[in-house]
């Protein structure tokens, strides 16, 4: 039985540590914030905010206060605002602890593709290339297979890359993979959803991984 999106977020939250500064990508990764529990986590929004609070109460939205997904948010007692240059100085300079983001494809060497489908989608990479290049630990959350049923954790990315050799942990709806370092360690299957076996995962994955 595959994990729900919320269960995936719960699992991703176990990558958090007390005191961490974290950037959560648009979509599923934003759910991780709901599962931080007692951990003291500071959320960064790359459009220029550290210490992002929850959505505002109805009628308290402020057009000048949005997150990187362009959603209205709120501030906290710890919040600071800064320019985009300062925001990415923080990211590129390796000052953030962790970033969790979505993916179209992850390769067995840690390459990530999540920004472009040539000839079809021309939205852009936004801050994703900076986040994966600058953040010491990158967790990817994605469905194990795409809508056509094809695996997304694959031997080599087919789509244009967001970053080379940047993914540390992959959380899908059926499995969690992790690698010990970015220096050649293979991804290891460290967890499976209830009722999912390692064999099941192998059958649905084209990337090589160890068990």
């Amino acid at each position, binding site marked *: 039985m595959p994990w729900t999106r919320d269960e995936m977020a719960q699992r991703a939250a176990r990558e958090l540590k007390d005191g961490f500064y974290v950037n959560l990508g648009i979509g599923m990764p934003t759910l991780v914030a709901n599962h931080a529990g007692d951990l003291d986590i500071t959320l960064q*929004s790359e459009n220029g905010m550290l210490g992002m609070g929850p959505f505002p109460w109805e009628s308290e939205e402020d057009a000048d206060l949005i997150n990187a997904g362009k959603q209205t948010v709120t501030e906290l007692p710890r919040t600071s605002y800064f320019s985009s240059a300062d925001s990415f100085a923080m990211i590129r300079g390796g000052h953030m602890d962790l970033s969790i983001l979505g993916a179209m494809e992850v390769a067995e060497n840690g390459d990530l593709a999540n920004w472009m489908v040539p000839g079809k989608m021309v939205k852009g990479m936004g801050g994703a290339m900076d986040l994966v290049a600058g953040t010491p630990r990158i967790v990817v959350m994605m469905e194990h297979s795409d809508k056509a049923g094809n695996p997304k954790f694959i031997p080599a990315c087919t789509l244009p890359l967001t970053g080379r050799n940047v993914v540390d942990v992959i959380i899908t709806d059926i499995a969690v993979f992790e690698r010990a370092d970015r220096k050649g360690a293979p991804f290891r299957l460290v967890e499976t959803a209830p009722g999912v076996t390692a064999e099941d995962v192998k059958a649905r994955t084209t990337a090589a991984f160890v068990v």
Partner: protein
Amino acid sequence: MANKVYSDAASALEGLLFDGMTIVSGGFGLCGIPENSIAAIRASGVKGLTVVSNNAGVDGFGLGLLLETRQVKKMISSYVGENKEFERQYLSGELELEFCPQGTLAERMRAGGAGIPGFYTRTGVGTLVAEGKEHKEFDGETFVMERGIVGDLAIVKAWKADRFGNLVFRKTARNFNPMAATAGKVTVAEVEEIVPDGALDPDLIHTPSVFVQRVFVGTFEKRIEQRTVRKREIA
């Protein structure tokens, strides 16, 4: 003193616009965008523009207004996903697009404003955006060189200004505006309020006056793209 205060966008932009020019704009999504200058640029009819802006507005608002009228020849942006007309013009080859990672774009504006013609970053190495660019090893790691950007004109949106041109931004409406303000040969700032001399705390000015040549009070729609709220429970 040399007057920096103008009555509106049209007068503030007078004499600054020409076909084929490069304009650097502040704003992230529709937050903190120079709405008034964009409208005045549209009304001016200037064309063949290269616009450097993180986003391209939406259909019918923000920089989307200049796309509708085909005044833009080329965009340098990190994300244009909210704009159907953009996508159409780009896929049909009518519009040039240079994708630039968001942090690289912010740094390119800052570098241009700071007299730095090039800098190295690890962002984008091994991806499409690094193709054809110079690479260099530092301490065993590969970096790509990116160029500073200086525009003929920068248009920015701030919260408050004084008549000297000092600017203060509000919350996440700051975003690209401070760098854009440094990256124009001429910088025009639109603000919600021009405050009396000395009303801005000198420790807390985001953009010092030297970067701003013209300033005016605008009127702002401040459209929200994604209105996300929590519902209050009724007791």
